[in-house]
C-alpha cells in the first residue's frame, strides 16, 4: 500500500489572506472572527501498489488539497496520512522555474528540487531535453520561451525522474497536440512498469484511459469510491442534473 488516508480532515481559516500585524492584534482583541472552512472532511482511501486512481469533482471539491496532503506539503488537521515511496508531484508545472535562468539551468535546479542527485541529473539530462523537444533553445533564458515550451520542459523533467508515485493535477493538457500525445504515451508506459498514480482531471476520456479506480469528491467529502465507469457515470449524471435545474 502506497498511500493511506484515514479519516482525514483539513480546514483552512477563512481569512488567511492578509498576515499583517493589524490582523493579529485585532484577533487578540477578538474583533476578527476567523471562520474555518473544511477543504476535506473525513476522507479515507488507499492507493495500492501499481494502482492508478483518479480524483474527479467540481472546482473547489478538495481535489488539490488532497494532492497537497499526499505530497506532504501540508499536514492534516484530523486523521492520518501515510505515504510510502518517492512521490513526484506535478502540481503546478514550472513553479520552480526562474525566467532569467536558461532552460538547462532551470532543468538542473528543478531536478534538484524533485530530489534527484547530481549524478542522476547528469545521466537524465539528455533524455529530458530530448523528450521536451526544446532542442537548441535549451541554452536560452527561459523568458524567451513560449508558455508551451516551459510546460513541456517542466513535464519532461517530472516524467523522466521516475518516482514511485506520480501526482498529476490536470497536466495532460500541456503543450500542443503532438506533445500531449507524447506525454500520454509516456504516462501509459510508466503505468505499464507498475508505477502508481493519483490523477486529477476534468477529462473523462483521460480518466478512462489512465485509471483503474476513481473517487468522486464533492465539497471536501468522498461521494463515491469505485470503478472508473461507475464513478464517472455518477459524477456526470449529477452534473447533468445540476445543469438541468
Amino acid at each position, binding site marked *: 500500500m502506497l498511500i493511506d488516508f484515514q479519516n482525514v480532515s483539513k480546514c*483552512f*481559516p477563512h481569512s*488567511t489572506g*492578509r*498576515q*499583517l*500585524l493589524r490582523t*493579529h492584534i485585532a484577533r487578540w482583541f477578538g474583533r476578527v472572527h476567523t471562520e474555518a472552512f473544511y477543504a476535506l472532511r473525513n476522507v479515507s482511501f488507499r492507493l495500492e501498489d501499481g494502482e492508478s486512481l483518479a480524483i474527479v469533482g467540481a472546482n473547489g471539491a478538495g481535489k488539490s488539497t488532497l494532492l*497537497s496532503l499526499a*505530497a*506532504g*506539503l*501540508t*499536514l492534516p488537521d484530523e486523521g492520518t496520512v501515510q*505515504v510510502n515511496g*518517492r*512521490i513526484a*508531484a506535478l*502540481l*503546478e508545472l514550472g*513553479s*520552480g522555474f*526562474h525566467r*532569467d*535562468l536558461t532552460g538547462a*539551468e532551470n532543468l*538542473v*535546479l528543478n531536478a*534538484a*528540487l*524533485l*530530489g*534527484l*542527485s*547530481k549524478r542522476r*541529473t547528469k545521466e537524465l539530462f539528455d533524455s529530458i531535453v530530448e523528450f521536451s523537444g526544446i532542442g537548441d533553445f535549451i541554452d536560452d533564458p527561459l523568458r524567451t520561451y513560449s508558455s508551451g515550451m516551459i510546460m513541456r520542459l517542466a513535464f519532461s523533467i517530472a516524467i523522466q525522474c521516475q518516482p514511485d508515485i506520480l501526482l498529476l493535477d490536470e497536466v495532460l493538457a500541456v503543450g500542443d497536440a503532438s506533445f500531449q500525445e507524447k506525454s500520454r504515451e509516456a504516462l501509459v508506459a510508466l503505468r505499464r512498469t507498475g508505477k502508481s498514480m493519483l490523477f486529477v482531471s476534468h477529462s473523462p476520456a483521460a480518466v478512462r484511459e489512465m485509471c483503474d479506480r476513481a473517487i468522486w469528491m464533492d465539497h471536501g467529502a468522498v461521494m463515491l469510491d469505485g470503478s472508473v465507469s461507475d464513478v464517472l457515470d455518477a459524477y456526470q449524471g449529477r452534473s447533468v442534473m445540476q445543469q438541468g435545474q
Partner: protein
Amino acid sequence: MWHGDYLFLIRNLVEKDFKVRYRNMSLGVLWSLLNPLIMMGVLTFIFTKIFAQPNDKNFPLYVLCGLVPLNFFTLAWATGTTSMLENAPLIKRVPVPRYVFPISSVLSNCLHLLIQILLLLGIVLVFGRAVTIHWLWLPLIWGLEILFVMGLVLAFSAVNVYVRDTRYVVESTNTVLFWLVPIFYSFTLIPARFRGIYEINPVAALVLMMRNVLLDGHAPLGSTFTKLAVVSVVMFGAGLFIFTKLKDGFYARL
C-alpha cells in the same frame, strides 16, 4: 517525505540566487566591490575633512573593517527574512524541506561576502600591513557570524510568513545599525557602561575583532570571542526552534 540530495539542492539554489542577481548587470560582480569602496570614500571624506579626527591615516581601512561586516549582515538578514515569501510558489508546490530556503539565502550572501573580504584583505595589503598568523582567526570569527545570521534568518523568515510587517522592522533596524555599530567611530570612544551591550551585539563584536586582527595585528580578546560564540550558537538554536514550531503553518499562510 522528501528524500533528495540536500547538498545538491542547496548548491543549486545558491547558484540560482547568484546568477539571477548578476546576469542582468553589465559589470557583474564588480558592483559588489563598488558599493563598499564608494561608502569608504565618502565616509573617509566626511570624517577626515569635515569632522576631522586625529590619527586619520588609516581611516579608509578602519571604515572598511566596519562596512564589510555590516553590509553582509544587513543584506543577509533582509533578503533572508523575505526568502520564504519569495519562494512561496515552490513551498506550495514542491515538498522540499523548508529549511533550505533561508539557509541557501544566507549562503548566497556568503558568496558576496567572500568577494568583499578579498577586497578588504587587498586594501589591508595596499595600506602596507603584513599578513600575520592572527589572520587564521578570520575564518573562525566569520563562521560564528554566519551561524548567528542563519539563526536570525531562520527565525525572521518564519515569523515574516505570519506577520508580513516583520520585514519592515528588519529594514528599519538595518538603517539604525549603521549608527549603532562602530563603523566610523572607535570602540574606545564608547562609554564603559555601554560596552557590554556592544560586545553582545555580534556585528559590533565582529567589527571590533576584524580591527584587532587586520589593523592592530593581534589576536581578538578572548572574552569578546567567547561572547560571540555563545550568542551565535544560542541564536542558531533559537532560530531552528522557532522555524520548526512555525513551519507547519506556512502552507495555509503563503
